[in-house]
Structure formats: C-alpha cells, structure tokens
C-alpha cells in the first residue's frame, strides 16, 4: 500500500540570514527566525525570533517573539517574548517586552515598557 507523508507539515523551518556582506533596505516581514550580521534599514517583523550579532547595524523598528541583541540598533524593539541585551549592544530606541535581561556594559537610550504584568501597588497600611 502506498504511504503518503502529509505535505502540510514542513519538516524544516526556513531561516533568514542577513550576512555581513549584504545590505538590506525595505520592509522585511517573515515567519521564520531571522539572524542579522549585516546592515538593515526599514522595518522587520517576524512571528519567530531575531538575533542581532555584534557586527550588525540596524536602523529599523523590530517586532518579534524573542530578541537577542548584541549589535547596534537605531529603532524601537517589541519582543513579545524575551529580550536579551548583551554587553556589546547599543540601542537607541524604545523597548517593549515581557521579559528583559541586560548585561553590564550595554548602552540603552530610550523608554522601557514591560508588558507581562501591570504593576498594582499593594495597599500600605498606616503605621500607627
């Protein structure tokens, strides 16, 4: 009897890699993981994760699940999952994430909004 493998479930997830030898301009919208080692200018949106390497230079607003930042970004970052900023990172822009980790030495200039929980101050009883 013939065996049929369902075509609807791809076995490999396609990854986008912006290497150090190319320059990308425009609005990039993808579904897989994105690795940036080169230059990007415009916008970047993906349902998966973004990794920005140490040599990368990005002038773009970024929206992704998890973001690993080790390079230079001029723009806002929205990470629906985690945002990890290493010591070599430089970010000029705002960040919005539910989980944040920043290493000592990282440069951040912008606002930070944490989206996981709304902060509700506990009631403080008056000290008699």
């Amino acid at each position: 009897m013939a065996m049929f493998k369902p075509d609807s479930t791809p076995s490999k997830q396609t990854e986008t890699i912006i290497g150090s030898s190319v320059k990308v301009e425009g609005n990039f919208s993808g579904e897989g993981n994105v690795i940036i080692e080169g230059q990007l200018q415009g916008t970047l949106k993906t349902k998966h994760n973004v990794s920005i390497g140490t040599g990368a230079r990005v002038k773009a607003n970024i929206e992704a699940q998890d973001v690993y930042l080790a390079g230079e970004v001029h723009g806002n970052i929205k990470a629906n999952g985690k945002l990890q900023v290493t010591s070599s990172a430089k970010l000029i822009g705002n960040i919005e994430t539910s989980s944040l980790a920043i290493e000592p030495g990282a440069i951040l200039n912008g606002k930070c909004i944490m989206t996981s929980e709304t902060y509700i101050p506990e009631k403080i009883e008056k000290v008699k």
Partner: protein
Amino acid sequence: MYTYIVESEINNKKYEADLTKIENRLIELEIRGRVEKLTILKSLAETIKDAVRNQSETIVLIGTDKLINNAISTLAEFKTTIGIIPLGEPTLIAQSLGIPYGMEACDTLSARITSALDLGRVNNRYFLSALHVPDCRTLTLDCDNQFQVSTVTPSTIDISNFSEASNPHDGKLEVIVRPQAEKSIFGFMKKPSYSKKSVFPFKKLTIRSGGDSMPIMADGETIIKTPATIEVVPKRIKIIVGKKRDF
C-alpha cells in the same frame, strides 16, 4: 501505465549491466512499461508528450540530473506522476529526494510515496533544484517587492528549491548570497572559500546587475542573463520520493 525514458548518455555499454538489472527488477515488481531510449534524433519534449498522449500515468526518468533538468519544463505542463531512477553522474537531485542509486530505485518506485513539490520559474523555463549566478561585483535583489538586498563584496548567488535550508513544499524559494573571501598571496593554491552567507526566502525575485549582464546558470548551462525575474510555482509537480529524503 509506466513510461521509462533513458538518457542518451546512459544508453551505452558502460551502463548496459545496470540497465538489465533495472529491467529485471521492474519485471519482478510488476511495474514494467514502455521504454523510450533517447538519441540525438529523438527529442525529450516530444517523447514526454507522446507518453502523456498514450495515457501514461507515471513517467520515469532514468539518468542524471541533466535529464531531470531538461525534462522538468515539459513535465510541469502535465499532471503525470514523475519517477526517477538515478544512473550516471551527477545524481544530486535524486539524492535530495531520497531515491537510492540504480536498481534499488525500483523499490522506491514500487513503494510509490508521492510528494507535490514547488518548482521555480525563470521566464518560461521551470527548474526543480537550483540556479546559479557566478562571481559578480554588484548585484541588487528585489525580493517580493518588499525589500532590496545589495551585495557589498563580490559574491555568488544560488537560487535554491531544495538544498541546505530549503523546503520544496513551503511555497517559497531561497536565494543564498555567498561572499567570496579575499584572495591572499597563496590564494591560487586554495579553492575559493565562502563565508558569512546570507539567506532570504522569497516568492518572487528580480535580479539586477550593476554593470554588464551576468549569466544565470542551471546545471552548468547559461539559460538566461540578468536582469531576470524568478518566481515559485507552488506544488506544480507530483514526484515519487524515497524515505530518506532531505525534507
């Protein structure tokens, strides 16, 4: 009914024993059919069209990647199932599809695991596996009318349907940009090395070269020159694949 098309280069004494083994195995598996041996005077496209006219349900290509690449544009026009029996060199397409070499491929045919695969199209020519643009200084790639990729250093370009990170039924092709490493004094002693590649999945891609037109090659032959537009045609062909396929 099966039609078996034998590549002209395979149709010689070197492969006579292999062809006999294949024929015997096909008889054992009860999937024998009409055999068409290609010659200089017998056109591949006409042979395929004849097979379709004779209501052949499966057309099996016996030979190398060259035969598959040459047949694919004609086969893409019909809904016939395609089978492959790799014989000769190179047979990288069959390897990616998980089809074993020579006589063992008959068992893969008999098992009949079929898969609907995407094809690439450049102008009116289809391709199954890959296109190649050799070393070029300045290239601009316009992907899906959304973003542009410019090369900063001399690079080679590969457009791939299934190899490396590609998946032949995701409705996309991948363009892979490989920068050529800088040559040193002893560079002539080494093979050119490539590093820091870039990969972009796309549905439609326009390639423009800065200066002169660059050749776009398939299977070592120039098929078109830049500027060119390449697009994916999703699930265009039904092909018999092996269990050990790459995707």
